[in-house]
């Protein structure tokens, strides 16, 4: 592999885009560099479920052709992007990490794919995930777990561990994720990358295979805050195919990053997410970041959201309830797997056998839990009550945002745990999402960006900012500003400290790299 390629894959999307626009490199070169990188490291990382090198090269070549013809292209045209396998693509299989959809090529594109393609980004593959986005570790993928590039023995987070690991291991500068209870932000936290869950309705859900319709949101995954903002500007905006899509005119998120300043910003620290159950090294880095923000003019205050105590409980009723209904369509009739029971059987038997074989343990667990929460005689106590807790959580946020501009917490209680450490205890696994779930219940936007490595294990720690609904730009402002302060203090990016996955090929220059 040419030395040139190693430099290319380390570039941020913004830096790569500049070289593409200036003609210094071609989209085919950018694509090849990332495909080569995938070939070199993905056997170990397993971020991708599917790549289509020829297809990606053809897409890139078409971009180069248009650029040569003098067409004015979107600034990100030619930049490769990895796509979480929860998003339907009409030219690559889409499985949502499940056996039940193995090999399925949808006859249509998700709206975010249409937007990506219109902007000229180059999809380079589909990334691994917990089956139907149910998990915090990718260990529930039907196709085997993804490994954390910082320590291959550890989880990359979930459900979007594939997208986070892909950007963390320089297989792609950008990726799409989906966040139902933290599936973008928690993987960002454990992989030292950036992930954003937009305001509910800010990005179209059309073509995102639903886990929980009232909680799901597609969002950007990247190594820098600016890159997420650039991607957000591409995928955001109203879509008439998604009834819950907001019709708002959105400001440029990229501009918000560039202008980002914390001077005079009032930041509320969520008391309920700052202490018990959080790893010491996580809290240490978190507090350092707060100090840095304060030193740069932000006002840090404590804020209490008492209903958060009930948020996980509400989430683990609403999410499985909606999921149990959303996953009913996987029945072996129109698409996907069909399993005929021994000796044949009626269509009811075939459906039940298919779902028994096609769904993994976690999917079954949540379907049964959700079916229970909705069933006659239990609805009011469980689903109905959870919807009321949702109101209380929203009220808590509204009260908090009356006094502060943004809220802040560590993104997750611990750094990346070892693969297999929590698989036997569903409830322990569910607690990973304690800091991220409230934003999904309330529909508000959240960002996670790296703030350093935990002292005890040398693994990445993320900080989460939350803003009121529709104020995504505020997150990009504070995120961009904090990222600049941290990198100035460190003298390097955090991701540059990640171990070298392919030492034979790596000796990249650091200039312009992240």
């Amino acid at each position, binding site marked *: 592999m040419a030395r040139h390629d190693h430099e290319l894959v380390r570039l941020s999307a913004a830096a790569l885009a500049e070289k593409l626009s200036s003609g210094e490199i071609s989209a085919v070169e950018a694509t090849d560099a990332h495909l080569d990188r995938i070939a070199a490291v993905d056997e170990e990382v397993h971020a991708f479920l599917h790549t289509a090198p020829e297809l990606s090269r053809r897409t890139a070549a078409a971009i180069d052709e248009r650029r040569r013809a003098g067409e004015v292209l979107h600034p990100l045209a030619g930049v490769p992007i990895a796509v979480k396998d929860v*998003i339907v693509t009409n030219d690559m299989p889409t499985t949502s990490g499940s056996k039940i959809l193995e090999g399925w090529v*949808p006859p*249509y594109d998700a709206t975010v794919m249409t937007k990506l393609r219109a902007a000229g980004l180059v999809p380079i593959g589909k990334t691994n995930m917990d089956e139907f986005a149910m998990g915090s570790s990718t260990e529930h993928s039907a196709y085997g777990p993804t490994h954390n590039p910082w320590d291959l023995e550890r989880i990359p987070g979930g459900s979007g561990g594939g997208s986070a690991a892909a950007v963390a291991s320089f297989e792609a500068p950008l990726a799409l994720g989906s966040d139902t209870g933290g599936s973008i932000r928690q993987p960002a936290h454990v992989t030292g990358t950036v992930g954003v869950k937009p305001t509910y309705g800010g990005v179209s859900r*059309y073509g995102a295979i639903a886990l929980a319709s*009232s909680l799901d949101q597609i969002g950007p995954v990247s190594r820098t805050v600016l890159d997420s903002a650039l991607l957000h500007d591409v995928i955001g905006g109203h879509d008439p195919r*998604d*009834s819950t899509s907001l019709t708002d005119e959105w400001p440029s998120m990229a501009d918000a990053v560039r202008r980002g300043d914390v001077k005079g910003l009032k930041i509320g620290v969520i008391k309920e997410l700052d202490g018990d159950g959080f790893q010491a090294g996580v809290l240490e880095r978190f507090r350092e970041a707060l100090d840095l923000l304060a030193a740069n003019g932000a006002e840090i205050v404590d804020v209490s959201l008492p209903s958060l105590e009930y948020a996980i409980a509400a989430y683990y009723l609403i999410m499985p*309830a909606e999921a149990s209904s959303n996953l009913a*369509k996987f029945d072996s009739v*129109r698409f996907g797997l069909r399993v005929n029971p021994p000796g044949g059987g009626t269509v009811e038997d075939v459906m039940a056998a298919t779902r028994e074989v096609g769904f993994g343990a976690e999917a079954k667990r949540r379907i049964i839990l959700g079916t229970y929460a909705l069933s006659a005689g239990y609805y009011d106590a469980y689903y109905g009550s959870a919807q009321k807790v949702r109101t209380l959580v929203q009220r808590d946020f509204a009260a908090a945002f009356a006094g502060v501009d943004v809220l802040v917490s560590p993104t997750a209680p611990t750094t990346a745990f070892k693969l297999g450490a929590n698989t036997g205890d569903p409830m322990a696994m569910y607690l990973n999402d304690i800091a991220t779930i409230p934003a999904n219940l309330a529909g508000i936007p959240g960002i996670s960006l790296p703030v350093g490595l935990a002292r005890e294990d040398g693994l990445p720690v993320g900080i989460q900012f939350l803003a009121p609904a529709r104020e995504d730009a505020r997150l990009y402002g504070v995120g961009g500003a904090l990222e600049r302060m941290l990198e100035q203090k460190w003298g390097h990016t955090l991701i540059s400290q990640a171990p070298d996955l392919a030492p034979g090929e790596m000796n990249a220059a650091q200039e312009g790299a992240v």
Partner: protein
Amino acid sequence: MAAAKLMDFDKALELFEPVLGFEVHVELSTKTKMFSDAPNFFGGEPNTNITPVDLGLPGSLPVVNGEAVRYSISLGLALGCSIAPSSRFARKNYFYPDLAKNYQISQFDEPIAFGGSVDVELPDGRMFTVPIERAHMEEDAGKLTHVGGATGRIQGAEYSLVDYNRAGVPLVEIVTDIIYGAEADAPELAKAYVATIRDIVVALGISEARMERGNLRCDANISLRPRTAPGEPPAPLGTRTETKNVNSLRSVERAIRYEIQRQAQILADGGTITQETRHWHEDTGTTSAGRPKSDADDYRYFPEPDLLPVVPSAELIEELRAALPEPPAARRRRLKQEWGFTDLEFQDVQNAGLLVEVTSTVEAGAPPAAARKWWSGEISRIANARSAEPASLVSPADVAALVTLIDSGALNDRLARQVLEGVIDGEGTPQEVVDARGLAVVSDDGALIAAIDEALAAQPDVLAKIKDGKVQAAGAVIGAVMKAMRGQADAARVRELVLERAAAD
């Protein structure tokens, strides 16, 4: 299956009070489906009018058809309902191969319309008020074809084929409250109620309302309550059955009558009624047991998270209310007067379920008396012979065209009956059938005069009688001429000419 024992209807009514309830599904005639922009059209090649939404493909999302909401509000208002200030869609979860998502998007605890009533006219002209509990919006399912086995029915089939063209077609389900007091009129009331709903949706222009095509479907609930002696408290309600698949007005009446007689016999024999769905069989005029209601019917309704509340403005509701057509009862009074029908004539039309057809035929240009004559006469006769609904045989426009041909003298009644058969057999419009079959009456006087002169010459005695002023004697000559013309002559014109020629001779 052994035929069920039936109690005599009058005897059943002596012992029991029938208690009714109806669920009528109306398919709306919007241009697109309820939640997708697929054309609202089925029939045709299977699986052609579908989008990812109708197929329930992973990732697809529903979006509400605004026109369907307006149609539903209009229907709610026409049923005398209140329109909910806010209503919601809900998912009804159950697995069935014709249900693409394995949940139906419907409305549950917050329907768009509730609390109305419909005045229904019984065959003898008495009015009966049917209370309406609610009307709600939902989507239709796909269509299953059962293959193998003897009957084409679900039992014994080897496999089934699914066509999702109908999946997502907009429906309004109209649910009555419990209907008491129908007594011996129960079968007629059932039929008159469904006919009234049909009249309402046709007048609103929101549905094709063709029962034979499933645009309008009725599920009939019935239970029997034992009568108690005067002064005693009423007996509790009996167990009900729900008869499905009742696809014509005639069947609605027959099915209710059958269920009353069947249930009465079981109860009188000391048996119990099973709460179950029953399937109506048009061919045998019986019902058979379907699925028993059980705790498996846990539909786990919950608010559809992919859709938002429907909150119609007061302005919209008033706008739609102002545009409502005349209520059916008032409309019937007006039509009866405009058409100059006697009470009996009008009731005949109405009881035969032909009001819509006659109205449309008159609107298409036919005189009311002629429209009634054809629909109640020849068309109904053929329909009866073929066990079909008159409306399914021929369109009002064709009947009006037929009447116009008669009035212009181009057809006589005998020829017109032949033309009608041609139209019913799919040979085209009346004019096309006339042309193709060469059925027009001979209007060339020259040809008629030649035939008349020949006939008069052959029957000099008749000619003499006519000349003597015995005009009725002309019948023999007219008959001979009509025979010579193979019936393709206007008998009235022939008579005129016969008298003319006889006088001139």
